[in-house]
């Protein structure tokens, strides 16, 4: 676990304090929804409904939910193959998400994209990038767009710890800083690339060190504490809207499952996994809200049951949805 991260976590508690009770509860419900979605995806994968491969974000829900809460509807968000959570947090329709993963005509991308490429431009979800690092320059372009349009939008870009070693990361951060673009780089540092620990591929664990070298504002955040994530994001977003330039948030977190498909993630020490499971963001936040008296345990159980049934219903509808037509005009999907 990262002591400093935990220590820093509520540094900007001011922002979090501004959340209404409803917002706080809503955050929990979003996290529950994402967790239930991913659990269902895993089941559907094993049933053969999800094809190829899939990358789940269980354990990282606080980052998706916390950042999304700090955004406006007209902000831009980009992410990776591990992007289901970001999409749901922005309001992507559950059934459209499942249907896309199932390769159906009713999917968010009509079944042409798949699990790694959920896109929903109407929710500002500009794209899921399967090539590590590729989303960052694109987010920079969306940030430039926001700057030019002058409507105080921001562009948020999610990526993993493994992405910080590839060239695209570097070029993107430099340009964003030199042009002072409203881009929030959110690094979900879950300590692993596919099977390699971060210290195997990077000289240190705290990626804020690297980001700071672009003269960029950085913040190390406990990525398993949704209010800490929200607070950090809200601060960075407010500054960016106000022409304060880009920011880099490093959210320390952990994926509960393997990298993709059925990866058992044997490369991780059991003690490490156990320690992180104890800091499950969902349980922590649920307990916090209960302790604060905002909700009761049974409220929380109800949220879970509701989410689970909404998820199940959406998955069932998606599974019953038609396959995309072989007769559609694919060239019209390629060129306007």
């Amino acid at each position, binding site marked *: 676990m990262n002591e400093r991260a935990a220590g820093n976590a509520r540094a900007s508690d001011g922002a979090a304090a501004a959340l209404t009770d409803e917002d706080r509860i809503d955050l929990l419900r979003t996290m529950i929804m994402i967790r239930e979605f991913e659990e269902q995806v895993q089941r559907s994968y094993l049933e053969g409904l999800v094809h190829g491969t899939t990358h789940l974000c269980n354990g990282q829900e606080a980052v998706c939910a916390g950042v999304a809460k700090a955004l406006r509807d007209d902000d831009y968000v980009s992410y990776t193959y591990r992007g289901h959570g970001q999409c749901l947090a922005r309001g992507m329709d559950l059934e459209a998400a499942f249907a896309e993963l199932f390769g159906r005509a009713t999917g968010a991308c009509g079944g042409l994209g798949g699990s790694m490429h959920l896109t929903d431009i109407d929710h500002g979800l500009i794209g899921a990038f399967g090539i590590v690092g590729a989303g960052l320059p694109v987010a920079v*372009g969306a940030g430039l767009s*926001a700057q030019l349009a002058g409507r105080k939008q921001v562009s948020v870009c999610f990526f993993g710890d493994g992405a910080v070693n590839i060239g695209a990361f570097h070029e993107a951060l430099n340009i964003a800083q030199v042009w002072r673009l409203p881009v929030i780089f959110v690094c979900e540092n879950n300590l692993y690339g596919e099977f390699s620990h971060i210290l195997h591929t990077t000289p240190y664990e705290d990626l804020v060190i690297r980001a700071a070298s672009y003269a960029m504002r950085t913040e190390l955040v406990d990525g398993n504490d949704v209010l800490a994530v929200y607070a950090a994001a809200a601060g960075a977003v407010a500054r960016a809207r106000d022409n304060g330039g880009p920011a880099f948030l490093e959210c320390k977190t952990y994926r509960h499952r393997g990298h993709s498909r059925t990866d058992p993630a044997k490369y991780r020490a059991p003690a490490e996994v156990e320690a992180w499971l104890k800091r499950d963001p969902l349980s922590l936040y649920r307990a916090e809200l209960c302790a604060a008296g905002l909700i009761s345990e049974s409220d929380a159980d109800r949220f879970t049951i509701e989410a689970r049934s909404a998820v199940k219903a959406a998955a069932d509808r998606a599974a019953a949805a038609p396959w995309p037509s072989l007769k559609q005009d694919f060239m019209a999907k390629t060129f306007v």
Partner: protein
Amino acid sequence: MTANEKMAAAELKPLQMAIQEITYREAIVAALREEMRRDPKTLIMGEDIGASGGPFKTCQGLYEEFGASRVRDTPIAETGFVGAALGLALTGYRPIVEIMFADFLGVCFDQIANSIAKHRFMSGGRVKTPIVIRALGGAGLRFGAQHSQTAESWLLSVPGLKIICPSNPEQAYLMLKAAIRDDNPVLVLEHKALLSTKGAAPIGLDDVAMPTGPRVLRPGRHATIVASLAMVGKALAAADRLALEGIEAEVIDVQVLRPLNVSPISDSVRRTNILVTVEEQAPTGGWSSDVVADVVSQAFDFLDAPPARITLPDHPLPYSPHLEDSFIPSPERIAATVKSLL
């Protein structure tokens, strides 16, 4: 009149078209300028294209007219700014980028092939990606192996991308304008050896459209020569030579490499029965193989001889002038090849 004066004149009556004798470089500048005036959502990014007007002066005057926010000098970071073009396009802008040498397309290949070209399709056709990538390529200037490639074939197999190649000022002007208005990603390959060549162009013409295929530049009955970029001039010169001997060669500029439409070439071959292609690239993986393969399917019975392809050799281009020249297809070689097939 200098290019700037010409454009200043055009500025007064922007919709009035006037045929002008300008250089390929001026044609590029004019196209950029007119389209950037036409649509405030356009902007251009590239290395040293701002106050300096671009290393090849292909952005001369734009910075002065449109300012630093629409004519953007970038860091040396092609992946960064080409990727940024996609972000701009997805959010309502119409970015243009300049790649200083086409050889540098290699450093941003991924953004073009995997992000830009596929994004619309992967979204289920729900987004538009109006992006123009201009890259200056080509040999003949003794720039050595890493600064002399047309890169015509690097992205030839990438679905979702349009690739166009202007070979004269008129095309440079019309095609670039059309590319900027196109709602799809268009790679515009320009040739640096052509920058100072002159020709007539309908400056101020507003009614432009993306060409849908090759264009016959010189009609002829005895043989069809298809070429791109700087090879078009060589082909025309070859046709001149052949004409002296009574051989009328039809010269076709392939001009749109993707999507490839060989019908006009097949039509020509049905009349001439002879096909020669000229390509400033290695013998494999280029458009001339595609043209030959497609023409063979469309006009098999009309061919009097196997089509001949003239290309660069299968090694990098050398620096030494005599060597470089010897490897660039010449009018003599083209004419001789045509004659060998008659």
